[in-house]
């Protein structure tokens, strides 16, 4: 008995287990779509059907029709669908759909309501989208064309198709089938898509993407660079012209002439070799000195130069009274005879004007190397001395301010030294005061501006252009000046004369170039 009972229990249990699992659910999720406002389709999603083959049927009623109709076409729109053709489609009308699922387990149904097919209108995207780059002036643009979706009837006025374009931005452009897009830039790539909407239905999907590239406007670039070139050329040409006009001045500024020793017969190599005899021979050459007797006949006088009341030179040269002080240009022509002269100069005031000094200095550099024959001398300081013209003399009288003094006329000058030429006028560079206070100077004389132990500044007649800016500090201060006995002088860019304190060069290296 117990065995029978247990057997029946297990059997009933297994049987009941089998039947619990299977149930049939009604279809869910109902959706419809109309492509052209003339037909429409609806789809449903089947519920769980217990694994059994299930049949689905759709029944519908319209708001005006009392009768219930069945779906005319289950096939055209795919599985679990119903397709309503033109005959069975009523726009603006309400549909009540009932989907019934039937299988071995029974029936299950669900009701769906469509208030208006218009709400499900969604067309296909436009077709034949073409994009052409139109490169006409004034600026290129994209010419975009397309066609309406194939099923939609636009000829009878039944539908109003509106298009929307996006070229990296949305442009709603209405019902035309073309659009000119102007917001483009050369060199960029653009993507174009079109979609459409039927009446107040839904937008279709976007059509395929069309690409278009705007070519670079080389012409514009070319014009631009030509323009830039011309504009930069004009100031350049002007600068060149100005430089050309003032090339001398520019040359003065940029490439001030560096004096090199240009002594006739003197060779740089010779100096380097260091043999003093050779140097002396080279320097002195064929010097014909006047006989000693001739020298002693004359009174030895000093040539004193000062720019102040102090006679510094007298102190320094007191011991060397017998020595003559000559002004010798830097480029000494050894073929010259040096003649002593009686000079007593009262050098009181030598005015210095920086600018005029500069100008005077600059004159010096412009002179070409020439010999210095002094043709005649005139008298100075009331002393009547006849000075014999020498074949070449290279000194100059120092003018005393303010009295009239005689001047020697030096015709030629070496390239490093100045001097004076015949038709020189009163220096322009002088201050007004200076000009007025001084007696008018004959034309062909220069004027010594300033002298110190090292240097004598001579004013040249014409105002010079130049930019000798260098101001030798030690020239301006007499008190500090030390006369340098062994003829040490400093070449200041060849603008200034050298005064050789001890007289003419007769022994050893007369001067050194610093």
């Amino acid at each position: 008995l117990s065995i029978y009972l247990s057997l029946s229990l297990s059997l009933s249990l297994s049987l009941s287990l089998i039947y619990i699992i299977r149930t049939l659910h009604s279809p869910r999720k109902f959706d419809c779509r109309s492509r052209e406002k003339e037909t429409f389709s609806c789809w449903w999603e089947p519920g769980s059907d217990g694994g059994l083959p299930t049949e689905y049927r759709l029944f519908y009623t319209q708001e005006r029709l009392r009768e219930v109709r069945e779906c005319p076409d289950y096939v055209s729109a795919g599985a679990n669908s119903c397709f309503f053709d033109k005959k069975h489609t009523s726009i603006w009308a309400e549909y009540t759909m009932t989907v019934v699922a039937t299988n071995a387990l029974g029936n299950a149904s669900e009701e769906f309501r469509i208030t208006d097919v218009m709400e499900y209108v969604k067309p296909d995207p436009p077709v034949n989208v073409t994009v052409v780059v139109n490169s006409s002036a004034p600026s290129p643009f994209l010419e975009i064309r397309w066609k309406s979706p194939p099923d939609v009837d636009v000829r009878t006025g039944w539908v109003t198709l509106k298009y929307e374009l996006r070229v990296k931005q949305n442009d709603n452009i209405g019902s035309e089938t073309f659009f000119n897009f102007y917001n483009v830039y050369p060199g960029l790539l653009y993507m174009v898509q079109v979609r459409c909407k039927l009446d107040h239905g839904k937008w279709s999907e976007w059509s395929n993407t069309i690409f278009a590239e705007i070519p670079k406007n080389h012409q514009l670039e070319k014009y631009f660079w030509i323009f830039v070139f011309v504009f930069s050329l004009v100031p350049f040409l002007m600068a060149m012209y100005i430089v050309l006009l003032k090339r001398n001045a520019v040359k003065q500024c940029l490439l001030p002439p560096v004096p090199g020793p240009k002594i006739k017969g003197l060779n740089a190599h010779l100096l380097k070799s260091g043999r003093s005899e050779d140097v002396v021979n080279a320097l002195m050459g064929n010097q014909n000195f006047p006989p000693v007797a001739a020298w002693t006949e004359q009174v030895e006088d000093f040539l004193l130069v000062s720019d102040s009341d102090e006679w510094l030179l007298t102190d320094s040269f007191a011991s060397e009274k017998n020595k003559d002080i000559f002004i010798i240009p830097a480029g000494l022509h050894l073929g010259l005879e040096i003649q002593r002269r009686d000079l007593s100069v009262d050098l009181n005031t030598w005015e210095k004007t920086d600018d005029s000094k500069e100008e005077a200095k600059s004159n010096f550099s412009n002179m070409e190397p020439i010999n210095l024959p002094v043709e005649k001398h005139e008298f100075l300081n009331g002393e009547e001395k006849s000075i014999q013209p020498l074949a070449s003399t290279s000194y100059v009288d120092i003018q005393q301010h303010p009295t009239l003094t005689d001047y020697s006329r030096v015709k030629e000058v070496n390239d490093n030294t100045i001097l004076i030429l015949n038709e020189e006028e009163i220096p322009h560079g002088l201050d007004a005061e200076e000009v007025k206070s001084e007696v008018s100077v004959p034309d062909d004389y220069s004027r010594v501006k300033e002298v110190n132990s090292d240097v004598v500044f001579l004013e040249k007649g014409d105002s010079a252009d130049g930019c000798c800016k260098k101001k030798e500090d030690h020239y301006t201060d007499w008190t500090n000046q030390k006369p340098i006995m062994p003829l040490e002088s400093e070449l200041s860019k060849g603008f200034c004369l050298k005064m050789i304190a001890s007289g003419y060069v007769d022994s050893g290296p007369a001067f050194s170039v610093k």
Partner: protein
Amino acid sequence: ALCSRLSSIRAASSCTNGQTGCHFLSLANLFDRVIQHSARMHGISNDLHSEFELYFLPSKNQIGRVSRNCHTSTILTPNGKENAQRIAREELTEVILKLLVAWREPLWHFHQNMAQHREFNNFSSNKSLEMSEMVHELRRGVQKVVEKMQMLGVINSSLGNLGSPEALLASDRAEWRLMNDYDLLYCFRRDSNKIQNYLKILKCRIVPEHGC
């Protein structure tokens, strides 16, 4: 643009008296104007409906919506393209006018309600006013078109009583008061779409050469 259209329609009406300086409008031209007008009206109704849905019905459930009864349901309208093309011109014209007449009062009252309610912003209030005025103007415009068509012999003059279409709808006057605001907007959107469609079909049947 709307104002110019309205004034041009008014100008069209004054021209029929034969005044000097009037521009003679062709039938196609008239049709274009009323179609533009109806398109704009439909656009506004769509905007208002969407706005209403946005503010007052956040949970949008299309499938399970309660059925609506529009007060114009009694007017028989062609519900398909073939039907609209097969129906007689006079009948189609009559349907259009009936619809336009039926909506004049309800829209006016709708605008009055909107003006009082603070929840609607100025945008909606202006649109409802524009909508109610447009329905009125469009009806007059369509009447002008009908007169022109009758003059040209396009349609026969059997629609003499269209001058006062209110007579046709005398019995239906009270029905629209049963609709709530949302249903009213929904129904008018549907009907304005019908009006636009029928006008276009009519134009393409009568003067098809001017772009259909």
